[in-house]
């Protein structure tokens, strides 16, 4: 009983801490935390592919963008659309896109997979840029209505112009997404994923269908990228090709994942936090985004290929060795 309570205690503490964030940091930092939460989910969804299944995608922004554009278009054209349907439409559009793309891409892996995604994302970007009458072209869609967060007849919180409320909404949606993804990786199916990454042939011999399994992971990953995109669209109240479908949007979750460590579930969350801090601090002094990103990529891949969590694990290991040595010397 006490053991069980001990296990839940950190989570309870975390939830309470998250609940008090708006009170402690004030409204200005809400932007920072919401963006962090969105990109944490986006990065973890990418890591379902990259870390768990071993598929590097240079075009995950497609699904982020599909979620964003789906929600934005729905809110623009469907009168009085409630919040959760709007979110669902975002997710559905990402899933739909994934269903179209996945038969083409799950057949390949490695470099071909990465490059095909770069290509498809670029195609989508160009289409969003050129089909001005639907997507608003370069300027994108803006100023659509943000529905309130409400349980009909009980309560209703306005989200428009209330950063603290939006923060709670974002934290709930994104927290739930993280929790679902965590569960997803712990199922037997999640183990097949890891098996595919480590030795696809063996999984095939064991009688599992590798291509089908890859497709399922792919669609799940796209769905959560869609969640992130959809929430981000409602938060920013604007969607535009560069911020949702551009190459840099595809690279951001890869940076986060590499920084945090591809070998662990929470690695990308750490990575997002680290990158967000780097952005907050470094970009106050310089606006040379490319240089900073380039240096991060090169340094991380050369000196800490498992990222922050790998580094932590290494330190822990060293500390244990050190302690062992001390104990042996004392004895």
């Amino acid at each position, binding site marked *: 009983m006490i053991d069980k309570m001990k296990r839940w205690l950190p989570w309870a503490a975390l939830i309470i801490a998250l609940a008090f964030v708006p009170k402690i940091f004030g409204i200005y930092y809400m932007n920072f935390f919401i963006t962090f939460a969105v990109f944490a989910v986006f990065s973890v969804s990418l890591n379902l592919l*990259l870390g768990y299944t*071993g598929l*590097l995608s*240079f075009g995950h922004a497609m699904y982020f963008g599909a979620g964003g554009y789906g929600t934005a278009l729905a809110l623009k054209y469907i009168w009085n659309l409630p919040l959760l349907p709007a979110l669902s439409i975002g997710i559905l559009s990402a899933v739909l896109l994934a269903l179209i793309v996945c038969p*083409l*891409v799950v*057949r*390949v*892996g*490695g*470099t*071909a997979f*990465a*490059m*095909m995604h*770069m*290509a*498809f994302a*670029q*195609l989508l970007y*160009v*289409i969003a840029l*050129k089909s001005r009458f639907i997507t608003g072209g370069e300027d994108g869609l803006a100023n659509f209505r943000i529905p309130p967060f409400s349980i009909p007849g009980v309560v209703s919180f306005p989200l428009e112009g209330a950063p603290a409320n939006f923060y709670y909404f974002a934290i709930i949606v994104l927290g739930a997404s993280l929790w679902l993804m965590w569960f997803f990786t712990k199922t037997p199916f999640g183990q097949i994923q890891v098996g595919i990454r480590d030795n696809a042939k063996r999984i095939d011999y064991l009688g599992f269908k590798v291509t089908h399994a890859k497709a399922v992971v792919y669609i799940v990953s796209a769905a959560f990228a869609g969640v992130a995109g959809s929430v981000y669209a409602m938060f920013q109240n604007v969607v535009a090709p560069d911020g949702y479908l551009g*190459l840099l949007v595809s*690279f951001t979750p*890869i940076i986060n994942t*590499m920084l945090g460590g591809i070998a662990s579930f929470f690695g990308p969350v750490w990575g997002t936090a680290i990158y967000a801090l780097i952005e907050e601090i470094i970009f106050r002094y310089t606006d*040379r*985004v*490319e*240089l*900073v*990103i*380039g*240096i*991060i*990529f*090169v340094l991380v*891949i*050369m000196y800490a*290929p498992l990222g922050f969590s790998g580094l932590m694990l290494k330190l822990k290991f060293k500390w244990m060795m050190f302690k062992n040595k001390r104990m042996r010397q004392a004895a």
Partner: protein
Amino acid sequence: MDVTASMYAAQAIHGIAFGMVLFLIAAGLNVIFGMMGILNLAHGAFFMLAAYFCYSVVAMTGSFWAALLIAPVLTALVGVFVERFFIRKVQIMGAMGELILTLGVAMLILGGVKFFWGTENLPISVPPVLEGMVHIGALDYPIYRIFMIVLALVVLAIMTLLLYKTRLGKIVRAAVSDREMVNALGINVPLVFMFVFGIGVWMAGIGGVVIAPILTVFPGLADQVGMYAFIVVVTGGLGSLKGAFIVSIIFGLLSSFGIQFFSQLAPVLIVGFMAFVLAIKPHGLFGVKE
């Protein structure tokens, strides 16, 4: 000959010239991938770097011909440096490590270029010998475009001779098929691969110098033209020179005629063509399954 026909001919020459430059870059990319198995995402950035080197050399010496000689070599040296001190270190991590490292290098070069040369468009003028038109039959052809086509063919010929007619080429091809054995025979394989990487980057460099007078030099070069080179390589099949050649010419023509007839949709045409090809053949037109 009437106006329409000459318009078509001019567009075709433009398309083929652009296709040939694309092919130069894509061939460099393909040589590196085919020989070393590395997809060099920094290739577009090297191409752009060469254009900037070209600008600086022209500014210093006033001679385009000097730039044509020096700038690609300088770029190749940067490439060799990157291979020796960065890429070689991450090769044990497989494709993912290389992709992310070269992506990082691409970002670094882009950032560096913006730092040293700024972001504005820098013009380079065509040398006087190559200005103007030449009469063939009843049509006028711009000399510089023809020069581009000829130069690309010359570089290609040099490459082929180097790879298939020299001792070095033999070693490279042997190292591709069995790296360990060649190494065991006392040949320094990492050195050979460093050389191969240098050659690949040198080809991108030639492309960068040649295109500089037409498009002017600006940081977007890496994205615009470099992206096309990647699309060419992926569509033609990674590592296949034949595929790269065919697809470059198709893309060159698609872009020149596309701009002529429906300028808004030209980029969609090219990317759409690639998506279509990859949908049918995921490893590209002439690609081999990994």
